[in-house]
C-alpha cells in the first residue's frame, strides 16, 4: 500500500505545482504548455481515482483538442485585443472571484458526510434492464438521457455561436486556422499513417464503452483529433459552415436521439423510455450517431470561424 500512497502524494504535488505554474506564467504560450501538461497529468489522476471513463475523456480531450483550441484562441486574441494588460482593479476582482469559487468547492467537499451519498448501487441494480454493462454509459444514455440529449444540443448551439463570429463578407469561406505556406513532410507522413489507425481506435473506444470504460464522447474526440491532424497536414481542406454534408453530420446524433426519445411515447408510454427488448440496440445506435456528431462538433469548434478574406 505504501508505494501507492507515495505515488498519489507525488501526483498531487506535481499537479498542484503545474497548476500554480500555469496560473503564474505571464505569457500565453508557456501558460498553454503548462495547461496541456496539466491535462495529461489529470488523466493519470483519474486512473488513480478509479474513474477510467473520465481518464479516457481527459486523455482524448487533453491530448488532442485542448492544445489546438487554446493556441488558436491565443493567436486570435493577440491579434484582436492587442497586448494591453488588465488593470489592477480587474485583476483583484478576478482573483477574488476565483478564491470564492475555490472556497465554496472546498467547503462542499469537506462537509460531505462520510460515507458520501451515492446512487451507485441503484445504477448497477438497473443495468440488466438497459442491456449495457458499463454503468456510466447507462447513466449517460438511459437513466439521465435527458441531460446528455440537452448537452449535445448545447454543443450544437456552441457550433452555431462560433459560426456567428464569421464576418459577413467571409460567410461560406474556408476557415484557415493553420498557415499552409510551410509544410513539414514529417507532419504529412504522420497524418497519412496515423489517421486510419485512429479511425480503428476511435470506433473501438465507442464500441467497448457499452461494457467497459469508453463511449461516444471519448471515441468522437479521437476521431475529431484525426480529422484535425489531416487538416493540419494540409491533406484535406476544412469544410465551410455552408457545407450541407457537414451540417447533416452535426445534426444526425442529436436528431436521432430526439427521434428515439419521442418514439418512447409510442413504444413504452413515456418520453425517452426504451422498450426493454430493444434497449441495448437503441442505445448503441444512438451512441454511433452521437459519435459522428461529436467528432464533427469538436472539429468545427477547434477550427473556428472563417476569418476575413484579404
Amino acid at each position, binding site marked *: 500500500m505504501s508505494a501507492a500512497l507515495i505515488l498519489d502524494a507525488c501526483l498531487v504535488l506535481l499537479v498542484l505545482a503545474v497548476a500554480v505554474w500555469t496560473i503564474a506564467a505571464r505569457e500565453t504560450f508557456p501558460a498553454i504548455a503548462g495547461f496541456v501538461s496539466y491535462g495529461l497529468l489529470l488523466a493519470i489522476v483519474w486512473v488513480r481515482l478509479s474513474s477510467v471513463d473520465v481518464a479516457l475523456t481527459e486523455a482524448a480531450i487533453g491530448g488532442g483538442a485542448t492544445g489546438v483550441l487554446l493556441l488558436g484562441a491565443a493567436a486570435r486574441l493577440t491579434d484582436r485585443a492587442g497586448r494591453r494588460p488588465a488593470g489592477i482593479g480587474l485583476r483583484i476582482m478576478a482573483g477574488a472571484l476565483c478564491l470564492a469559487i475555490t472556497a465554496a468547492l472546498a467547503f462542499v467537499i469537506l462537509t460531505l458526510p462520510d460515507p458520501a451519498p451515492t446512487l451507485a448501487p441503484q445504477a448497477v441494480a438497473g443495468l440488466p434492464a438497459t442491456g449495457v454493462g458499463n454503468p456510466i454509459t447507462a447513466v449517460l444514455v438511459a437513466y439521465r438521457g435527458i441531460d446528455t440529449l440537452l448537452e449535445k444540443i448545447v454543443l450544437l448551439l456552441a457550433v452555431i455561436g462560433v459560426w456567428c463570429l464569421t464576418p459577413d463578407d467571409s460567410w461560406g469561406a474556408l476557415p484557415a486556422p493553420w498557415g499552409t505556406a510551410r509544410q513539414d513532410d*514529417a*507532419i504529412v*507522413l*504522420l497524418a497519412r*499513417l*496515423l489517421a486510419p*489507425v485512429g479511425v480503428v481506435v476511435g470506433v473501438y473506444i465507442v464500441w467497448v464503452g457499452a461494457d467497459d470504460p469508453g463511449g461516444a464522447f471519448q471515441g468522437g474526440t479521437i476521431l475529431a483529433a484525426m480529422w484535425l491532424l489531416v487538416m493540419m497536414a494540409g491533406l484535406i481542406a476544412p469544410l465551410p459552415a455552408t457545407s450541407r454534408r457537414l451540417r447533416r453530420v452535426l445534426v444526425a446524433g442529436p436528431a436521432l436521439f430526439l427521434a428515439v426519445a419521442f418514439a418512447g411515447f409510442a413504444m413504452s408510454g413515456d418520453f425517452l423510455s426504451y422498450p426493454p427488448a430493444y434497449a441495448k440496440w437503441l442505445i448503441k445506435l444512438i451512441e454511433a450517431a452521437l459519435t459522428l456528431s461529436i467528432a464533427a462538433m469538436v472539429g468545427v469548434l477547434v477550427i473556428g470561424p472563417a476569418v476575413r478574406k484579404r
Partner: protein
Amino acid sequence: MSLLRDLFTVLMVSAGGFCFLAGTAGLLRFPDALTRLHALTKADNLGLGLIVLGLIAQAPGPLGALKLVAVWLLAQLAGATATQVLARAVRAEGRDSP
C-alpha cells in the same frame, strides 16, 4: 516458471526506469535545446520499450501482449515524428531570435 517470469519483469522494468533516469539527467545537464531533445526522445523511447517488454511477461494473454506492442509502436511513430518536427521548430526559433 512464474518466478522466472517475475524476475524478467523486474529486470526489464528496472532497466526502463534507469533509461527514464538517464533521459531526465540529460534534460537537466545538456547545454542546449537540440541536445536536450536527443536526450528526451531517445532515452525515454528506450525506457518505454523496456517497460513494455517487461510487462508483456505479465500480460493476461497473447492479445493483451499484442495490445501492449501496439501501444509501443504508436508511441514510436509519435516519437519519431515529434522529434523531427520539434528539432525543426527549435532551429527556426534559434535563427529568428538573436
